[in-house]
């Protein structure tokens, strides 16, 4: 089995071919089965409890949060009240942050996927000069976590005058070596070379081949690239935190950090009398950050099972 396959491929066997029975007999004996199931279920419960709490929290008032059962449901009205209270913070600054996050993320996903796909294709299917060097550099950049370069990036972004602009976040986050690697693997292994050659014989230029042959076959790849780019970008904190400072251009996660420190919800020293932003409100704000990611993840868990050895981006 090759790395290549593990990353993009184990796939076609994963979801269909295996007959459930053949593995079901693996764990024989009732005690073994019970222990296995118990472990799996307990782990599942621990996994979902925090999220369930987070979803329920804004339905209660701050007082009810401490007095009632953590899993009780307050009322739907309370979500609206919490939202309205959040809107009091800097005249609805939260909405600005949401809009910022949406368009920054959209721009990053678009740029990172487009550049990664083109570069991956170039590495895989065209006679690129210095290709080995470029591939190695990309591999190294892929394993080194993006956080490692945040402070040096700050120095650079300041020097070129992009500091405190949306572009400081968008451009730096669009560098996506992992995507290039994925695309490279995809174009080398899942599209037969013969196809490219046939197109070449038909008189297609390299761009024509990419556009007419490779791209239409790479919708799946595009989905994967977008998935990893989105999940990494939407929650990113450190990089945008260092890249911008003005309140009206912060993305949502950084804004959430501002809410932590500037409201009495988590930092009661700030002053319980001024802002009605307390625990339910902060939980709602957290929920707004978490839900898009949650939906994307749960919807894509099939994708992950298909052997994209790549949770790597998140670790």
């Amino acid at each position: 089995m090759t790395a290549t396959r593990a990353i993009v491929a184990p796939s076609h066997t994963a979801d269909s071919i295996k007959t459930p029975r053949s593995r079901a007999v693996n764990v024989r004996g009732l005690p073994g089965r019970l222990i296995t199931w118990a472990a799996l279920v307990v782990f599942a419960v621990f996994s979902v409890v925090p999220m369930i709490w987070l979803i329920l929290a804004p339905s209660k008032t701050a007082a009810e949060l401490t007095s009632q059962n953590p899993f009780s449901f307050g009322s739907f009205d309370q979500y609206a009240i919490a939202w309205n209270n959040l809107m009091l913070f800097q005249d609805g600054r939260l909405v600005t942050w949401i809009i910022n996050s949406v368009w920054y993320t959209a721009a990053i996903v678009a740029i990172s996927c487009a550049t990664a796909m083109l570069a991956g294709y170039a590495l895989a299917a065209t006679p690129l000069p210095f290709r080995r060097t470029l591939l190695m550099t990309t591999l190294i950049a892929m394993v080194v976590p993006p956080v490692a370069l945040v402070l040096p990036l700050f120095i650079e972004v300041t020097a070129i005058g992009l500091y405190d602009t949306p572009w400081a976040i968008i451009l730096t986050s669009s560098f996506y070596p992992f995507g290039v690697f994925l695309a490279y693997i995809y174009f080398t292994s899942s599209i037969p070379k013969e196809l490219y050659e046939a197109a070449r014989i038909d008189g297609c230029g390299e761009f024509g081949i990419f556009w007419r042959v490779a791209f239409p076959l790479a919708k799946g790849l595009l989905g994967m690239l977008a998935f990893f780019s989105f999940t990494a970008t939407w929650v990113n904190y450190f990089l945008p935190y260092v890249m911008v400072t003005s309140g009206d251009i912060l993305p949502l996660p950084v804004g959430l950090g501002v809410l932590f420190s500037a409201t009495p919800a988590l930092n009661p020293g700030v002053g319980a009398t001024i802002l009605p932003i307390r625990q339910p409100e902060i939980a709602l704000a957290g929920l707004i950050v978490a839900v898009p990611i949650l939906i994307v993840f749960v919807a894509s868990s099939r994708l992950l099972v298909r052997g994209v050895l790549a949770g790597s981006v998140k670790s």
Partner: protein
Amino acid sequence: MGTLAGTLMFAPYFILLLAFGIVPVVMAFFTALKPSLANPAGGFMNYLLVIQDFRFLPALTNVVTFLVIYVPLMIVVVALMSLLLDAIQSRWTVGLRAAYIVPASISGAVAILVWYFMLEPTYSPFAGLLESVGITEGSQIWNTGSLVWIFVLMAFFTGAGNWIIVQYGSLQSIPDDVLEAARIDGANAAQLALLIKLPMIKRYLIYMAILTFAAGLQIFVEPYLISSTVYPGLADNWSLNQLAYSFAFQSANLGASAALSLMLFVVCVIAALIAIFRTDFFEDVRSETRKTRRAARRAGIPAGSAL
């Protein structure tokens, strides 16, 4: 002509690679030599200055302790849970998998928020559990001694589910005939897991360990944000990255900050090189030039099937 087209296609990414992958490293190298109030002469003294700073050793100890707990925990739990998940074969695994992926959405700033509440007995759904180990108030948990465990918990929770699913995916791709053969030889479930399946996913576990290590080394958000909540300053300068941040923006010492960042960067690059050249994970890529076609044939993936 193909060369030109390929170069053009590679160019947009290459610009990003150059601008945000290579140039910052070069700039950091020169910035790290800059003088500051604390070191008016500048130069390589900045590196020494960082290492001699009284916060450096505690931060290093914290991060090392964190890694020593976090990385093995990830390997053991991820291996165990994915093997267990693979051992049962039931339609319920779909639900279990969905459950395991949920915590991945609680990361970064949201993780701080959620874990504050989870570990504060006044709010926590785990209050009973906390009480059973003698914890009745938040300050028993939120103190310097247990910070490392809190960060391990947060990082583990965010990352483990993802990896369990991924490793489960690798396990599922082990051909049935291999398992069948072992079973006929009389292997029981445990032997099957430990002797057949585990060795087959070993390389992915190692790869995961390296990535986890590199990411863990850079820990910043969790300790940083904790310090602006109920326990102000609790984890100030807890991690090396926080220290780098403090150098840059509290002591106005960009030189020291860049020096520390570079040191961390070098460790990560070494980890990357180990991943690439010392594990067999990227074997195919390393020798790709000649083998591409063979790999493609072996992989034999239906085009467009990944989603």
